[in-house]
């Protein structure tokens, strides 16, 4: 198992005619957590997608070592299927999620419920179950606290803490405050061009 690393050099992102940020560099190793802050539209989600290799940066380059997992606003779960079956699909690809993890996420009683009947918070927790099952070393979390109640926020913070303690690496983009030990903060506003148009 290689040591996880996530590095970016001189990244710039352009969406349509707008330059969202430029000159962004970062370097994270296992055991580190970075919180990318900024208001809506500043480019947090685009940064996550660039780091995940799903979007080409306008300039700069990304180095990613180790398996990578992404949690964003899409669930990647089949809406019409019971939660247990659609998680089972990812279980076949990633390996089955242990019972205690499902219990920890509060999903143990919801496995027979079709995904479309789940509430906002339950959907987010279902996506977290998919993330945990992947056992990836690099976690890219885009607004992981959206729609969660206070207990669930504490639970997510504990999950990330555990992940980082086991040598993982986490990058969290969120406009909400998050409490984690040794949390580094990257305000994305600092990298926005002075004039917001090209």
């Amino acid at each position, binding site marked *: 198992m290689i040591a996880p690393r996530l590095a970016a050099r001189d990244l710039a992102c352009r969406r349509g005619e707008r330059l969202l940020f430029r000159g962004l560099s970062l370097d994270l190793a296992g055991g580190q957590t970075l919180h990318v802050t900024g208001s809506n539209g500043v480019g947090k989600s685009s940064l996550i997608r660039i780091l995940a290799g799903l979007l080409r940066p306008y300039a700069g380059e990304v180095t990613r070592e180790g398996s990578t997992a*992404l949690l964003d606003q899409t669930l990647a779960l089949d809406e019409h299927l019971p939660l247990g079956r659609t998680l089972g699909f990812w279980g076949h690809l990633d390996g089955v999620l242990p019972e205690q993890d499902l219990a920890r996420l509060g999903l143990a009683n919801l496995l027979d419920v079709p995904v479309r009947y789940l509430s906002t918070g339950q959907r987010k927790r279902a996506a977290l179950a998919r993330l945990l099952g*992947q056992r990836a070393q690099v976690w890219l979390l885009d607004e992981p606290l959206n729609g969660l109640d206070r207990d669930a926020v504490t639970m997510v913070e504990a999950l990330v803490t555990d992940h980082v303690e086991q040598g993982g690496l986490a990058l969290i983009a969120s406009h909400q405050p998050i409490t984690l030990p040794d949390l580094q903060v990257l305000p994305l506003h600092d990298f926005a061009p002075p004039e917001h148009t090209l």
Partner: protein
Amino acid sequence: MSTFATLLLRDLAQFLPGARRGNTLLPLLFFLAVAMLYPFAVGPNPNLLAATGGGVIWVAALLAAILPLDRLLAPDLENGFFDQWALRGIAEEVVIAVRLIAHWLSFGPFLMLAALPASALLGIDGDTLRTVELGLLAGTPGLAAIGIIIAAVTVGLKGGGAALSGLLVIPLAVPLLIFGAGSLALGGEGGVALTGAISLVLVAIAPFAGGAAIRAAREG
């Protein structure tokens, strides 16, 4: 279970007739409805029906293959499935190839079955029916391949994508129709062989064209 089998099982559960509360049955019913309406429209002259019936089956098959296109790839892109597969190192080409198999299985064999009652409705004789069935066997994989390429190219379009993909499929399907339906007039198997050749080329291209289109759509 291998990645390929896992993906194929999920796709079959989604696309085989009867899945998604029966929505997937609609193309087959549509196919039979066309075969049923045609005698009403042109009149009950048996000679005319027998002479044109094989061609009607082909046109109905083409239209039935267009119906599921808007559900073929777009939901998986919107729900983030393609992102998650990419992060796991599963190539878009593999996903599209699996989807192509599932799409063909969901309408090809069933259209060939439905062609039996359709041929009775149209008064087609046994020899012609045999040519139609052989032609469908050779041609429907090509129709599925065209469908999946078009579905991938139009995947990012919001609204109106279904009608547009239908319009885009029709010109690409002309060679298949010419040789597939044309083999009926000649009564030979040369047309069927050419249909099969076109199908094979399309099936070979589809995963790569579709994969590139999905990656382009993700950038958008």
